């Protein structure tokens, strides 16, 4: 069951899931981020944070257009139990290596009810913090 749910997550990451995050996030989804320690509750705010995170990993607007490049974000391990999966990821941002884990819990309908993210090293967290803050401000203005 969870394999299909995770497959939808990957499709969404590739931009191939019909309906995108709206199709897989539960209305009462909770997002735990290393950037904002207060849990973010609800589909809309979770979407906002995930969109800002996605933009932060794909170079974003702080990089001049000519130098923009596709994100090298990739999952390197997937381990699950029941309806929860742990996905370990790696990426580089502005030349800095980072890795972390997404812990995603689904309900029986395949909707995501909780996402928790942890990252290392500290420099990468600080960098993502800056980028996400800028991206969130832009998204909130739209």
């Amino acid at each position: 069951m969870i394999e299909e749910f995770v497959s939808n997550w990957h499709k969404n990451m590739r931009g191939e899931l019909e309906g995108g995050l709206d199709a897989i996030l539960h209305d009462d989804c909770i997002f735990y981020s290393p950037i904002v320690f207060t849990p973010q509750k609800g589909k809309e705010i979770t979407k906002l944070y995930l969109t800002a995170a996605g933009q932060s990993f794909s170079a974003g607007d702080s990089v001049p257009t000519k130098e923009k490049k596709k994100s090298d974000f990739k999952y390197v391990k997937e381990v699950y139990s029941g309806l929860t999966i742990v996905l370990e990821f790696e990426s580089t941002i502005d030349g800095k290596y980072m890795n972390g884990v997404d812990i995603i819990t689904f309900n029986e309908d395949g909707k995501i009810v909780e996402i928790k993210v942890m990252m290392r090293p500290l420099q990468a967290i600080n960098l993502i913090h800056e980028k996400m803050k800028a991206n969130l401000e832009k998204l909130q203005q739209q």
Partner: protein
Amino acid sequence: MIGALILKTMMDSGTNVMNERDVEAILKHWRDDAVMIYPGASIVSGRHEGKDAMRSFFSAFMEQFPGHMEFTTNQTYIKNMLALGLSNTIVAEFSVCYTNKHGERFENSGVSVVTIKNAKVAQIKDYYFDVDKLNAAWRQ
């Protein structure tokens, strides 16, 4: 599945010996060339390779947290539940409550991604949810 269950038992036992502060019992489960990657910006953050480095890491840990220390494994994930052998990847979601050498008490949570080869730990990569709190706990 038996192999996976044996490894899960081994992980649980690892948490117990950590709480009992028994460094040699912890190291018994590690390969000689094991690697540990610890997060944050503390004196022990970074990569530790080999059993001697690991012994130094855990000794520093016990010195930093001489008082109450309690690791609890909240959830264990096993990559290949059907594995017959004793090599696998296990992820443990944990919470910790400990008091550092300055008498400051901290609560945190995290994830250990553990690679096991032939029933011995080959690599552990730790992630903590609140890295600021982790650094504060390691204040010298």
